[in-house]
């Protein structure tokens, strides 16, 4: 299915209170979440996150980290809930509910763990000390862009609301580092066929992730985790990558993360949790990041039958991939050659071109029944064009590649005002580039001037702030919140828990298959029961 696959992007935003650098970031993040919950249409909602199926300590390499030896930051689930039961895949007429006892008292609402399930299917919550927008599950690069940008609007609306109602001036930034040693993530989550051995994925993806920075980087002022050396580099995240493979996400961050928590049928799928990427504002950058990764994963799932192509991927193995992350990020010419295990040397662009070549060859061999052929062709064309353009002159990519757009603006300021790279004005511009307020965002200035390309229509983004994608289970989650927020006591990626007085128990609707619960499957049921969750559930569960 080429560029069609379940994907979601999680983004932790930087947060700051104007004039109060000592403000508590957890409290501020909570305020953002609760402010948005108050203005979104699920204001009456009391839905908590349902942790029942979460397992952040499961390692894709086949072992499980003992809870006691996990860093507290890795415990993203809640151990107080019962173990999962049942494996119900249906989410359409005939779905079976799990009955849960109705608690006698409402659970304590921890203000430090504020959580909102949005009508667009996303989750907005506090992750460590940052507000995080986890996009709903989408299936194409274009939709990934639309619901990612919708997240910027959610953050903007929350901060406006706080200013209006509480006089609180919180500023939010879609970036990944403070250049004082801290980094916070933008994670891509792809479902990948479980039949592909994890070691094969690691082998195929490592050189890809190391080299894709040439077109996925957001650009960063300063070199080193503390920006201790002056200069500019391609990636926000590169200096915080310290390992090849690992389970951790807050320290010793790896190129390939092994958290194996698929939120779906684990026999069929694994969730590839990619933590090496940057937060992108430029829409063509997000589009190409997701689209090219889709194509490489598509190829990875088919290589068992194409030994010649598998060999071409294997030949790209890097001698020192962790060091190469930094090398590629610091090479503004995109021409430095990396040493391969074979002893050969290739530039990041040449390595990317080999990925493109293998994908193209595989596409020509595959019987093509591609429901999104137009987007597949578009991603392929953009991929080829951007590699050619980066090779002849990286600066010619300023309309599509974020680090180039940022570099061009900063370099222009640097020349005009005669600044060195360690001048605070340039560091400030780097931060303000990603301010979510359009009147402050330097990225938005470039959009307004027509100096960078966009992908999504404004009307699509506005709609995506409140409406879910129609072709994944996010549709069920989002529409359920839109219609019945007052009767939903919990939800997660793979469940929604209803509390209707007509039922003696809470009813937990499992939605383990992300391809079900779509508008096609359940749209009519929502239309037929717009305000009555009890009759909706009866119809869904086939009781009447």
């Amino acid at each position, binding site marked *: 299915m080429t560029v069609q696959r379940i994907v979601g992007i999680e983004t*932790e935003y*930087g947060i700051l209170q104007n004039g109060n*650098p000592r403000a508590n*970031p957890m409290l501020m993040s909570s305020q953002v979440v609760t402010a948005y919950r108050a203005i979104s249409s699920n204001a009456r909602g009391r839905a908590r996150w349902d942790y029942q199926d979460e397992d952040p300590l499961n390692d894709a390499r086949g072992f499980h980290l003992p809870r006691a030896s996990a860093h507290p930051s890795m415990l993203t689930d809640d151990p107080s809930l019962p173990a999962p039961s049942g494996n119900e895949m249906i989410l359409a007429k005939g779905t079976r509910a799990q009955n849960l006892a109705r608690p006698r008292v409402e659970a304590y609402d921890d203000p430090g763990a504020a959580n909102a399930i949005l009508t667009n299917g996303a989750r907005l919550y506090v*992750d*460590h*000390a*940052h507000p995080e927008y986890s996009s709903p599950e989408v299936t194409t690069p274009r939709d990934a862009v639309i619901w990612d940008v919708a997240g910027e609007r959610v953050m903007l609306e929350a901060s406006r609301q706080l200013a209006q109602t509480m006089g609180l001036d919180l500023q939010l930034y879609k970036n990944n580092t*403070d250049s*004082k*040693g*801290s*980094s*916070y*993530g933008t*994670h891509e989550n792809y479902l990948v066929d479980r039949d592909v051995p994890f070691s094969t994925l690691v082998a195929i993806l490592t050189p890809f992730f190391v080299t894709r920075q040439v077109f996925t980087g957001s650009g960063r002022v300063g070199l080193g985790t503390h920006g201790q050396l*002056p*200069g*500019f580099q391609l990636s926000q995240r590169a200096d915080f990558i310290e390992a090849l493979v690992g389970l951790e996400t*807050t*320290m010793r961050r790896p190129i390939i993360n092994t958290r194996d928590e698929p939120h779906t049928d684990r026999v069929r799928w694994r969730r590839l949790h990619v*933590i090496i990427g940057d937060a992108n504002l430029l829409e063509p950058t997000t589009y190409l990041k997701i689209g090219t990764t889709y194509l490489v994963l598509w190829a990875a799932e088919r290589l068992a039958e194409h030994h010649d192509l598998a060999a071409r991927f294997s030949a790209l193995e890097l001698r020192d991939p962790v060091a190469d992350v930094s090398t590629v990020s610091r090479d*503004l*010419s*995109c*021409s430095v050659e990396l040493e391969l295990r074979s002893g050969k040397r290739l*530039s990041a662009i*040449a390595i990317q*071109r080999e990925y493109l070549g293998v994908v193209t060859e595989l596409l020509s061999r595959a019987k093509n029944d591609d429901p999104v052929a137009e987007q597949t062709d578009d991603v392929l064309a953009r991929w*080829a*064009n951007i590699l*050619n*353009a980066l*090779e*002849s*002159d*990286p*600066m*010619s990519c*300023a*309309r599509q590649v974020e680090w180039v757009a940022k570099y*061009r*603006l900063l370099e*222009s*300021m640097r020349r005009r005002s005669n600044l*060195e*790279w360690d*001048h*605070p*004005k340039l*560091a*400030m*511009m780097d*931060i*303000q580039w990603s301010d979510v307020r359009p009147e402050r965002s*330097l990225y938005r*200035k*470039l959009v307004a*001037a027509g*100096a960078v390309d966009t992908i999504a229509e404004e009307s699509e983004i506005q709609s995506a702030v409140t409406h879910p994608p129609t072709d994944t289970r996010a549709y069920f989650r989002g529409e359920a919140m839109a219609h019945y927020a007052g009767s939903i006591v919990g939800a997660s990626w793979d469940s929604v828990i209803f509390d209707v007085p007509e039922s003696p128990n809470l009813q937990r609707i499992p939605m383990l298959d992300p391809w079900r619960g779509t508008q096609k499957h359940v749209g009519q049921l929502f239309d037929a029961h717009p305000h009555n969750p009890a009759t909706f559930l009866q119809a869904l569960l086939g009781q009447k």
Partner: protein
Amino acid sequence: MAGQEQQRPQTNEVEDDANAGAPTPPPAAAAADFEVDSLLDEIDDVLEVNAESFVKGFVQKGGQ
């Protein structure tokens, strides 16, 4: 920062041959520079007043 200057990529003959039919990128860079240069005054107007204290105050906790 001499090390930060743009270097022209070294030409690789084999790859050039492989891309003989590919379109050359548009001569947009110069025009685009002009485009951005004309924005600098507008950008100065929206930047925080004190760059040094703003950058110092931008302290974040680590995340995932």
